[in-house]
């Protein structure tokens, strides 16, 4: 590894951390701008002026906002996300399990979606502009264009109600075996796969097609390599950077964009947890979840950037 690449990577990571800090400021500011006061929200209808004053004191709401921000940030950095207002439970403990569930679902959706998208993309390139290409693109685009809840309900109707192959609700809990868990998440994972498939597939197809115009591909063809061998050996490695980029973006989406799918399938993940607490105006939880989502998004993007740098010879050996 040359030193410019180390420098580039270090820069990316530093930028990511800065970005995350900026996001944390935004999240904190956003929740402060929300109408109403946290103490009022906790006490609700039965609030008396004295109890409001007491609670404000107790929560440190009388301090200026920037002090509260650094307090919060310090807590987050040491792993203390605070306690939920509505239930008084430690946020870090309750989020841990939820986050694990969300990652579990995202992982299995990704395991299916990424290879499937890339293979479909390769096939589409091989038979470009033919009926196979059009069919693949058409189906993938259609499944992406439908809203997630619609796909979710369709899957439920078909596979849970009509044929009863999979459960309609995806409640998972401790003590379930891996097999049971996989069966439970089959439908939401399928819904997520359908949602992210087209983007990755189309990007794979476009990136490879782009490379296919190059002279060296023509040379390879003239050498007499089969169409698939040309794509696999010459086109794909050179098109990998944009593909990794779009894969990472979609991975991020699988983690942070699952709110609707989790609600439809009653999956106990972060999305459902966030929705519950937003309706209760439970600000500490909303802040914590927001920050985690932002961290996932930013780190996956950094990984995409770094992978793109490493994969691209021009970036690897800048002139």
């Amino acid at each position, binding site marked *: 590894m040359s030193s410019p690449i180390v420098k580039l990577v270090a820069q990316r990571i530093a930028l990511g951390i800065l970005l995350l800090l900026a996001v944390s400021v935004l999240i904190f500011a956003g929740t402060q701008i929300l109408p109403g006061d946290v103490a009022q929200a906790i006490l609700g209808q039965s609030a008396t002026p004295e109890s409001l004053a007491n609670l404000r004191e107790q929560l440190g709401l009388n301090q200026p906002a920037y002090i509260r921000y650094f307090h919060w940030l310090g807590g987050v950095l040491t792993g203390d996300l605070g306690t939920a207002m509505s239930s008084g439970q430690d946020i870090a403990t309750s989020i841990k399990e939820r986050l694990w569930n969300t990652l579990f679902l995202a992982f299995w959706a990704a395991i299916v979606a990424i290879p499937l998208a890339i293979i479909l993309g390769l096939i589409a390139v091989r038979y470009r502009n033919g009926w196979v290409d059009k069919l693949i693109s058409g189906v993938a685009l259609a499944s992406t264009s439908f809203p997630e809840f619609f796909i979710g309900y369709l899957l439920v109707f078909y596979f849970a*109600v009509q044929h*009863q192959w999979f459960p309609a609700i995806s409640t998972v809990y401790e003590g379930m075996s891996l097999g049971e868990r996989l069966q439970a998440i089959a439908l939401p994972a399928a819904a997520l796969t359908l949602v992210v498939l087209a983007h990755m597939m189309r990007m794979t197809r476009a990136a490879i097609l782009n490379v296919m115009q190059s002279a060296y591909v023509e040379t390879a063809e003239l050498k007499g390599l089969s169409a698939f061998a040309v794509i696999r050996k010459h086109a794909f490695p050179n098109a990998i950077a944009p593909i990794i980029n779009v894969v990472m973006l979609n991975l991020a989406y699988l983690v942070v964009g699952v709110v609707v799918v989790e609600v439809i399938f*009653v999956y106990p993940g972060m999305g459902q947890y966030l929705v519950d607490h937003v309706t209760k105006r439970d600000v500490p939880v909303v802040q914590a979840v927001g920050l985690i989502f932002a961290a996932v998004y930013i780190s996956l993007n950094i990984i995409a950037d770094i992978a793109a740098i490493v994969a691209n010879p021009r970036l690897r050996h800048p002139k």
Partner: protein
Amino acid sequence: MTNELDYLSRRVAAGKLSRRDFLGRAAALGVTAPFANSLLSSAARAAGPVKGGTLKAGLVGGESTNSLDPALMMTQVPFAFGKCWGEMIVELSPDGKLENRIAEEIGASDDAKTWTLKIRDGIEFHNGKTVTAEDVAATLERHSDEKSKSGALGYMKGIETIKASGKEVVLTLKEPNADLPYLLSDYHLIVQPNGGKDKPDAGIGAGPYKVKVNEPGVRHVGERFANYWQGDKMGHADQIEVVVINDATARTAALQGGQVNMINRVEPKIVDLIKRVPGVTIRNHSGPGHYVFIMHCNTAPFDNNDLRMALKLAIDREEMLNKVLRGYGSLGNDFPINASYPLFTEIEQRKYDPDKAKFHYKKSGHDGSILLRTSDVAFPGAVDAAQLYQQSAAKAGIKLEIKREPGDGYWNEVWNKQPFCASYWGGRSTQDQMYSTAYLSSADWNDTRFKRPDFDKMVLAARAELDEAKRKAIYHDMAVMVRDEGGLILPMFNQFIDATGPKVAGWVDDPHQELSNGYALAKCWLEA
């Protein structure tokens, strides 16, 4: 295929299909005659409770913020699970009478101010301790304490002293109250060891099921409590499970797919479709819940009784009942009481009358449009209902302007704050409770701002009256007053619409709350 067989065999049991036809259809489905016969006999044998199995309910109304502390129960899931693990002092029986549970006997002094509860022997908590008078007294004390934030605090404030001596608990009230036993049936008042003062959310009660899993917002599991004092009447399944399914479509799909045995809150607009699903039974029954439009009697233009009357006459109740509730409800009459309350008296039904409405509207002297706020969360179909109201009012020359408010924040920002909006009430178990909660001048939730000292006096008089006939007369006068002078427009009472899947037996219709007043999991069983 099994679904279809199940369905057919129940049709035979119900006398709608002959045995011969059944066997023919079964053969067409590829089932051998002996097996088909055995199916038939199991459908026909609807004998006593069957012990065993796991009974699952998929319910709306649970959040990750729920707690096992009975004082904090508010939504349907903690309520229904609470009835499984908790035991009450008294309970309302399905026929509207009082049923003594932990209290074996309840007696009142002549002035209805001192009440004595005699505690039943031999009831055991899940931790092995016996339920004592001290536990009952401590429970009541905890719920009377401001700090407990109990949902029952409103009524409990009326108790001055609570004393346990031997097997008795003696309560002295600040004001006489003939309804005290009904108030003690409030679902928050689950008796806990030492009243739950040590650990309010321990989940230890004396109910038919022990708490085994408690994952708020996800699921709750109960395991049969072997020493339950009424094991022959409740606690038939070995295990019960509540799965939180807040999405209506997912709930229905879970019932159809067989993941749960019962669900609550079936939407009226899909009842007719669900009914046709083989194996599914709709359990609908009317209760005290009602959908309303509320006007603040002290805010212009609603401070004019002619305008209020015009708006009451300008609503087409029949149409609303048929279109919004699809007939799953009953007509409202602008006072919050119906036949599900004790001491109810029928009053002439108010009808849609555009001409009379026009007359009163003119007399009120009001001009211009009236702003009505509504939202999806006000009640299911509230936006449609407001639009129907707009049209029926237009025929009477009254212009309603509808504003659709976001569901988030509706109960904080609109209800009980804005002068005219859509809302709902779940109802209470007695007339006194209902009127005290929302129609007394001093009530926090007086959401119609109906402030009438003469009405307040009637509420207090009825409360202290032990003579039923006299009480009934007072309640009648109160109802007439709210109906003709109040700010309540009550087009319809809704029904609880629950549904059960195949093989669920033992369902009891109960007018007090949904899911057999929360007891469905404890009272139902799975047929073998």
